[in-house]
């Protein structure tokens, strides 16, 4: 007997295709405009961006661990955490990642690394202390799903041209300030730097929204992955609720320290109610809980 896949969310898949397609289209338009108006100077810039992207991609694990102040722990330092991750990895058919602990009391977790072989999973001391083992398992399975879904790769590819656009925007700004217009050849035409500047700024803004949308979809996918690995979505649900309510209680000072790490965390550290969902890199808690509830129902589990 073949069991059906749980959480087969056709809507989510469609939205992912749509957003990915929009981003691709945007980048193509951007590239075409660049090649049309800017024949020189593009190659070195591309080289720089590709270099930057590769650097980011290859050092993502070290960067994220260093930025969060996480310390890689061996088995004898955290035997239970190691045992838990090992079993989840065996279940998810992943090699065992490095395991790190962030010495902060804010309960949270993140995963990083360009591929499963170079992955690292970090939990904060607060997460380990405040959550039940089954809830921690749900959170770890969510992070391992990010690893399995290759989210660092996906986000690097997704934000590649946004980086280029961002750089060109700055470049265009300088050209505008010091180039004195740059309209030496043809006084009737709009100066080249202005076109590049406007197109770049538009590309940057639109891609920023699209990238955040993709990021939110990846969160749903990782939640689903967690439910499948643990077979018990309700533990992740209670973990998410606990983490987000703990987040509200922590004073603002702590939050700012961890703000740079937001994209990697299971729940972003700063929770601004006023921010529209469009600009958030994580879906709102209620929507995540609703999606998990749906999976739980499919598994035949009363919530």
């Amino acid at each position, binding site marked *: 007997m073949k*069991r059906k896949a749980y959480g087969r969310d056709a809507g989510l898949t469609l939205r*992912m295709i749509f957003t990915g397609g929009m981003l691709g289209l945007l980048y193509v338009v951007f590239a075409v405009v660049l090649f049309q108006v800017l024949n020189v100077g593009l190659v070195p810039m591309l080289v720089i961006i590709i270099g930057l992207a590769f650097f980011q991609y290859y050092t993502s694990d070290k960067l994220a661990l260093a930025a969060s102040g996480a310390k890689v722990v061996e088995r004898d330092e955290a035997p239970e955490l190691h045992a838990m991750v090992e*079993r989840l990895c065996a279940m998810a058919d992943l090699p*065992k990642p490095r395991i790190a602990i962030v010495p902060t009391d804010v309960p949270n977790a993140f995963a990083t690394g360009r591929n499963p072989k170079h992955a690292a999973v970090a939990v904060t001391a607060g997460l380990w202390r405040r959550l039940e*083992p089954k809830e921690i*398992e749900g959170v770890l399975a969510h992070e391992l799903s990010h690893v399995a879904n290759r989210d660092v790769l996906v986000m690097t590819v997704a934000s590649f041209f946004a980086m280029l656009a961002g750089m060109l925007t700055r470049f265009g700004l300088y050209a505008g300030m010091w180039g004195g217009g740059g309209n030496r050849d043809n006084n009737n035409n709009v100066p080249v730097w202005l076109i590049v500047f406007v197109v770049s700024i538009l590309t940057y803004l639109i891609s920023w929204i699209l990238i955040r949308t993709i990021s939110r979809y990846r969160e749903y*996918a990782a939640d689903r*992955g967690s439910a499948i690995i643990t077979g018990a979505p309700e533990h992740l649900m209670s973990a998410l609720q606990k983490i987000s309510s703990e987040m509200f209680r922590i004073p603002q000072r702590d939050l700012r320290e961890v703000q740079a790490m937001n994209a990697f965390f299971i729940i972003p550290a700063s929770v601004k109610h006023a921010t529209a969902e469009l600009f958030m890199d994580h879906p709102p808690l209620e929507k995540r809980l609703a999606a998990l509830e749906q999976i739980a129902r499919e598994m035949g589990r009363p919530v």
Partner: protein
Amino acid sequence: MGLRDVLFGRKKLAAPARERLFALTTAAVTLDTELGLKPAGVGAICFKPLSAGDFARAASDVEQLLDSIAAESGSKLERRDDTFGYSWVIVRDPQLEDQVTTVHAVAQGLAEQGFGEQLLAAIFKFDGGTNPVYFVYGYKRGAFWPFVPTGKDQERDNAEELELKAKLEGELPIEPDLSRWLALFDAPL
């Protein structure tokens, strides 16, 4: 793991690999003659139970399955849940072949009910060295790896494990990726 999984996220656990459990019975001869390791008469299979719904319905079938397997093979079966929320079926039988056959039957039975993806590992114990030697079979990998706990808190004898790997590589499908050599310190056997 295909492109689809990367683009849209995994929707299922990996199915168990082609089963190569029985290779252990031939390797056992080498273990005995070359290393003096003998089957300790106990093995086990470990799986992750799913939900109260589908799985609970299947759970009674699992009990029935275990009863019928026990009656057929003459092995003693025992079901236990561990602190990590995994279920174990412990198989006691003096003959390694019978242990393997029984474990295979349990895995088969679970897979037939649609829970093949929930199978984690099988484990077999050998005595005769300084420490007991376990052979773990990972269902996702379709391969074995040795596991030698030293008896001290959460410590494994990696040197001994690598030696076993070198000795048995010809006869036993050994997992080549060392980062997947799951430890099972609290295996209830």
